[in-house]
């Protein structure tokens, strides 16, 4: 890990480059609404593990696909409410810690608020846009409508069209993992970026972990740049998305996803994992 006192351009008066524990401690509080995004790609696992390590609790955790990262945080007792739109272990099966918490209140009771991808995506869009809601054609015909919140019908002022409105979501903190930062604290990511941009604009605070710091970004297909003034803290955490993947850096470690099925099925095995892999390890990536 590079020194947190990395030298910045004169332009930036205060370094946003923090060690991960300091970044989490500074910007994530008990009870926060938190969005840790990354659609299969660039999932900020190291940051999630640090949240567990710091025993942050009562989070409202928002993510299209809870994936292992939220299953782990739920199992560790960090989460009181989960807002999501697809809750599985991708390509493997169920999220057992999520199910145990939701159905058996272990380690604590959690609420859920379930959406469709289109719906939750547009909740972020509204949040990013600084307006109270967004409109879409969504949820129609699904029983989900009667089991969720923040979804309503709205009539067009121009015609008889009735469409769906979803309420804005504005996380207290959004956490992402990206491939690169430059020394001025701008971040570049490429490949699948999902709702990363919307999650950043919707949030009050933004933490980004990155694989590396570069002098200068090089053009990449399908890349986005997040300007430094949208970011509160950057932590350099190589492999910070492991066991998910970081395009052009490493592939998904699918054995970990498969192994998680067994680990997470059993409370004791999970607790053992939590002790050996999180609590007794210091902050880092893989």
């Amino acid at each position, binding site marked *: 890990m590079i020194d947190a006192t990395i030298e910045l351009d004169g332009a930036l008066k205060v370094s946003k480059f923090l060690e991960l524990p300091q970044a989490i401690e500074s910007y994530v509080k008990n009870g926060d609404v938190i969005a840790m995004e990354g659609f299969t790609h660039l999932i900020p696992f190291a940051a999630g593990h640090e949240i567990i390590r710091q025993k942050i609790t009562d989070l409202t955790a928002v993510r299209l696909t809870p994936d292992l990262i939220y299953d782990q945080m739920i199992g560790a007792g960090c989460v009181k409410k989960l807002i999501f739109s*697809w809750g599985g272990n*991708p390509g493997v099966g169920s999220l057992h810690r999520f199910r145990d918490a939701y159905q058996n209140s272990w380690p604590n009771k959690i609420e859920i608020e379930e959406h469709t991808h289109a719906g939750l995506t547009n909740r972020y869009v509204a949040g990013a846009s600084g307006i109270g809601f967004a409109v879409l054609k969504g949820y129609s*015909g699904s029983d989900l409508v009667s*089991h969720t919140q923040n979804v309503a019908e709205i009539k067009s002022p121009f015609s008889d069209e009735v469409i769906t409105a979803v309420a804005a979501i504005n996380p207290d903190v959004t956490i992402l993992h990206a491939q690169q930062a430059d020394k001025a604290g701008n971040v570049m990511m490429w490949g699948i970026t999902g709702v990363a941009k919307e999650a950043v604009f919707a949030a009050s605070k933004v933490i980004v972990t990155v694989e590396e710091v570069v002098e200068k970004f090089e053009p990449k297909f399908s890349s986005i740049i997040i300007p430094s003034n949208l970011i509160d803290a950057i932590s350099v955490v190589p492999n910070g998305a492991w066991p998910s993947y970081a395009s052009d850096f490493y592939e998904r470690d699918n054995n970990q996803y498969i192994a998680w099925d067994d680990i997470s099925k059993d409370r004791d095995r999970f607790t053992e994992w939590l002790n050996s892999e999180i609590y007794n390890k210091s902050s880092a990536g893989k």
Partner: protein
Amino acid sequence: MNTTWTADEMMTIAAARTLQDGNTCFVGIGIPSTAAILAKSMQAPSLFLIYESGTVNTNPQKLPLSIGDGELANHALTVVGMPEIFNYWLQSGRIDVGFLGAAQIDRFANINTTFIGQTYDSPKVRLPGAGGATEIAASCKEVAIIIRQTTRTFVKQVDFVTSMGFGDGPGSREKNRLRGGGPSRVITDLGILEPDPKTLELTMTYLHPGVDISQAIENTGWELKVSPNLKTTKAPEQSELDKVRALVSTSDK
């Protein structure tokens, strides 16, 4: 004859054959994805595949592990954010075929990927939920569904309508303001079902070679309608089998 291929292989090949070259196809992960990628090596080389992760016109060389696999991004014409995928590509009605899997389906092709048994708040089995499926089912010009046919999957009433097919029959889609045409076919390990043009009820129109209609009836949780014009699916050609096996083997690598 049934000994030369598996039922899953037959299902995948049958599904792949239904995809037209040049169409846009919004693909769900799992067997739908396998079938769509297979179709590109068969009759539909320029099938335009879109995944909800944002990969546009992707040509994966091996099976993706998940909907956001790097394989999909690395072989895409372009990768865009999810608002663009859902709002500009899907919601606008630009997608020809939505290709979905499901845990349960009913006679009107309503599908469930949310939970099985008991209630939403206390389910027997909790499934992943909607993901992109609800709006794929709503907005694509037509929807194809791949699902193994058993009494656990082909049920009288789904425990939860995650994504609407034809609701409770004619008029339901209109009432729910769904822009797309709805399910045009359900491909199973036993055959193919299509909605009756009038009642919209799923009707068995094809049986795969070696499958008897009694098997289909036994494995359906409602009184299965059978087409008076029931046909037999063309048996897989060796080249089709070679291709599906080569493709599936990539996921082990």
